[in-house]
């Protein structure tokens, strides 16, 4: 009975939203038609109605269609990806499709402008498919095992995003279109994108119908599926391919609209769609409604303000809080545990390995202090030159190491706590919230002093932490809920950032410089403060060693071993957030290190909680110190921000290790 009544309420709410969406679309069209209304179309007066007619027919109507179709395509793609990866936070961006597409566009615009023959859409599609092909190739040997696939996708995505941001940064303000494209604008000039997308959606929907049964069987787990005679590898491969083609075409036609693909299947599941069939039908419908509703609101506000705020960014804006709101209604479903065995060796003498890492760090440190470059080439600074350069070199190096250590520790905590290989400090949304605080200050208080900017950063991070804790406290702290909450927070902050960046003003450059993570602004005092913060935050970590040893075994096992899971996890979240916030304050949101360092430490063979944590911290410091040094040398006198550089050197190594481990 209660369930039935709830069902009615959902239906009523859904109906109201559909109605609202339709009214917004109607409003946009009527506004486009002007005072003569439909007569513009039926009995046009050539002198005055020509342009109005063309705008309605070639811009407004196709825009409505594209919103509906793209929303459906993203919803379907998200449902397929989440189902096959068994990961509620998987979507086109997790597989690197969007980032690959954007990188192809940015690179072509910057380096090969004469590549005129190839349309922007084709380039984006090729880029998206290329990056996903690498991801699939990495997942091939292990039968597209979910965690490997998701991790590889995330790596490729971060790599592409780094390279793309670097190109934008180096080309200056003349790549405004890249910010627009990143925001996902739905403005249309013809029916072509709508037609293209509709055709691709139809084909994909047919294929998805064929995949419905294999997907249902896959949910039984790998062994069960094989017993039922299913080619697990084949089913996964084709599902991913269909989803990629769908998401890739949306990305190429209208740009990145991230949150719809992530939110629609989750909302569908919260509404009760559990079986593969129901999910595959509900997700596109919800996605469609979500995007057209968003676009209706965007059009209405843009018409009033004369601005062209990109719809994709606003979708994330609306989607973030919505997901937070739905979080308590999320059914407590457990992701089927990944039964693939952990690969790689366990070191017999882990602490000797830790000492070795520390030694390498020391060598890098000395190199970074002594070796530099000037107008005439590389130079080894000695004597007077060394003491002249030292005051410029040590503060940034210390800040880089401090940030690397803090992010790596945060990453190790979160990964051990959630058991999700995708979890990184970035997923907590703390860095994005800090960035939001900074950006709002830069926009609202032009020329804000550096200390005010730092304060705003800290306030943003603190607010992000409070929201995260509220989520954690309010609902049971299941890993899935917390990750979703963090992602919603990150998406919300990121969306506002995209809107600000799309304006392409001078403030965009101040924000972009911070966003990519840089050590330039670090003064000796700030460096010392960073080192002290790191020491204070890292010292209590050994106290958590027992929790971190046991928590990866799962909640049930941990509880039976006498751990108060909720309070333990809350404390770990607070420490991880403080670490992330600290690193963000000193060098900006360098997210990749927090993901990578714990993985690298584990691959070295450091498995016990204490050794793993120590190793992660050292590897994190090593990574960022190396990145900082090389970023100073590579493009002298131009310097790539250290955050970008870290992902460019760390990503390939991690991928190589993944491949190596698999071939054993």
């Amino acid at each position, binding site marked *: 009975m209660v369930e039935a009544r709830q069902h009615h309420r959902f239906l009523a709410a859904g109906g109201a939203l559909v109605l609202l969406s339709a009214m917004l679309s109607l409003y946009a069209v009527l506004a486009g038609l002007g005072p003569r209304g439909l007569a513009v179309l039926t009995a046009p007066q050539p002198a005055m109605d020509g342009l109005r007619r063309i705008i309605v027919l070639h811009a407004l109507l196709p825009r409505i269609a594209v919103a509906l179709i793209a929303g459906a395509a993203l919803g379907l793609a998200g449902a397929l990806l989440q189902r096959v990866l068994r990961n509620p936070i998987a979507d086109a961006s997790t597989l690197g499709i969007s980032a690959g597409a954007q990188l192809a566009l940015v690179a072509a615009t910057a380096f090969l402008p004469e590549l005129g023959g190839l349309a922007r859409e084709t380039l984006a599609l090729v880029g998206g498919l290329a990056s996903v092909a690498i991801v699939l190739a990495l997942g091939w040997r292990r039968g597209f095992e979910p965690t490997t696939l998701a991790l590889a996708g995330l790596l490729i995505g971060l790599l592409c995003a780094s390279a793309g941001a670097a190109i934008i940064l180096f080309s200056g303000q003349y790549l405004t279109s890249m910010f*627009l494209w990143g925001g996902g604008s739905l*403005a249309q000039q013809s029916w072509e994108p709508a037609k293209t997308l509709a055709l691709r959606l139809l084909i994909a929907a047919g294929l998805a119908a064929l995949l419905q049964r294999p997907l249902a069987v896959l949910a039984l787990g790998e062994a069960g599926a094989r017993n039922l005679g299913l080619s697990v590898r084949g089913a996964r491969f084709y599902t991913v391919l269909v989803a990629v083609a769908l998401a890739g075409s949306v990305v190429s036609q209208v740009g990145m609209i991230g949150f719809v693909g992530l939110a629609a299947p989750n909302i569908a599941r919260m509404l009760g769609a559990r079986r593969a069939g129901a999910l595959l039908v509900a997700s596109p419908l919800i996605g469609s409604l979500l995007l057209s509703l968003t676009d209706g609101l965007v059009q209405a506000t843009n018409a009033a303000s004369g601005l062209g705020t990109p719809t994709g960014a606003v979708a994330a804006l609306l989607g973030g809080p919505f997901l937070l709101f739905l979080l308590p209604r999320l059914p407590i479903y457990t992701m089927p545990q990944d039964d693939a065995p952990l690969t790689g060796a366990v070191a017999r003498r882990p602490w000797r390995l830790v000492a070795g890492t520390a030694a390498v760090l020391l060598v890098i440190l000395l190199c970074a202090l002594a070796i530099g470059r000037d107008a005439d080439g590389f130079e080894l600074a000695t004597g007077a030159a060394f003491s002249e350069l030292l005051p410029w070199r040590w503060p940034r190096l210390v800040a880089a190491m401090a940030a690397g250590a803090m992010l790596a520790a945060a990453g190790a905590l979160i990964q051990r706590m959630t058991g999700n290989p995708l979890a990184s400090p970035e997923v907590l949304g703390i860095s994005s919230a800090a960035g939001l605080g900074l950006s709002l200050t830069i926009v609202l208080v032009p020329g804000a*002093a550096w200390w005010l900017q730092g304060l705003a950063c800290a306030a943003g991070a603190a607010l992000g932490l409070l929201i995260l804790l509220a989520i954690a406290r309010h609902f049971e702290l299941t890993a899935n809920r917390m990750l979703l909450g963090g992602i919603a927070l990150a998406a919300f902050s990121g969306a506002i950032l995209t809107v600000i960046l799309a304006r392409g003003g*001078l403030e965009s450059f101040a924000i972009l410089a911070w966003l990519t993570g*840089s050590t*330039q602004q670090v*003064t000796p005092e700030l460096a010392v403060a960073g080192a002290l913060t790191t020491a204070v935050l890292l010292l209590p970590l050994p106290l958590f060693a027992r929790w971190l040893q046991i928590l990866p075994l799962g909640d049930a096992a941990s509880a039976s071993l006498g751990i108060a899971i909720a309070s333990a996890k809350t404390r770990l979240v607070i420490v991880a957030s403080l670490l992330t916030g600290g690193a963000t304050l000193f060098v900006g949101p360098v997210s990749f290190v927090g993901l990578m360092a714990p993985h690298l430490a584990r691959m070295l063979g450091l498995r016990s909680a204490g050794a793993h944590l120590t190793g992660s911290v050292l590897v994190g410091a090593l990574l960022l110190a190396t990145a900082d040094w090389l970023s100073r040398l590579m493009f002298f*006198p131009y310097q790539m921000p250290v955050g970008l550089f870290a992902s460019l050197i760390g990503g390939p190594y991690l991928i190589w290790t993944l491949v190596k481990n698999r071939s054993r």
Partner: protein
Amino acid sequence: MSPPALSRRRLIALGVAGLIASPARATEITAAAIDWAMLETALAMHIPVVAGAELLLYRKFVIEPALPPEIADLGLRGTINFEVLSRAAPGLILSSPWYTRLEPNLRRIAPVLSMRIHERGRDPYEAAEAAAFELGRRFGREAAAEGLVRETREQLSATASALAARPRSPLFVITIGDPRHFRVFGTDSMVGTVLKRLGLVNAWERQTSYSVQAPVDIVTLADNPDAAIVILAPVPDDARRVLPESEIWRNLPAVRAGRVMVIDPVNHFGGLPAARRLARLLGAALSEGAPGLG
């Protein structure tokens, strides 16, 4: 062949760049510029500038005043190369409030002059004049500052009177982001204030935020049927290809009437030299015509 490292470094440190340019001013303080508007203003006043940020892009998109050959490139504006800056040893660093994050480190090298030209609720042209006067005071070049201000005013009023005789339509001044979006300059931007001083009407009457213009849907270019469209280069290649085929673009009143002009790049966040360049390019385009799109 380049001279050996040390002597070259010492030469720059001694400010020989300034020496060569004008031997009489051997003791003059040198400048380094983070902000392009300050850089172009300083160069126009013949202040010896030993270092500037993002000079590769400056040569491409700001173009004038030309850079002195010995000037050192400081790299990206957001991530200044402090090692290069400290070796260039400027007497004063020219910045703007967008780079306050770097200021504590900049001050370790030399005093910082941070001037705001593009600011909400302030005429950027007047702010640019104020910046020129302030530079004149700081570098003892009051005469050069007055000269720059006077010459710029004269050029603007000369262009204005040359254009006064011709029929004028309101102007949309835009840069093209991609085939679907453009950025438009409002009355409160440097472009808008130059239009006003040339006696021209800005077709974009809606709100913008000081110098910056939001990305706008190309459809809004239809709002003013009498307007002409001035596009600041560079125009992205795909826009050149796609726009002429677009039904909407072809039916815009300005496009149908052939009132579309593409002019060379102008630093739209610039100072007086940028205003002068824009006035010259606009004047030439409006009196002699300029190529359209495609």
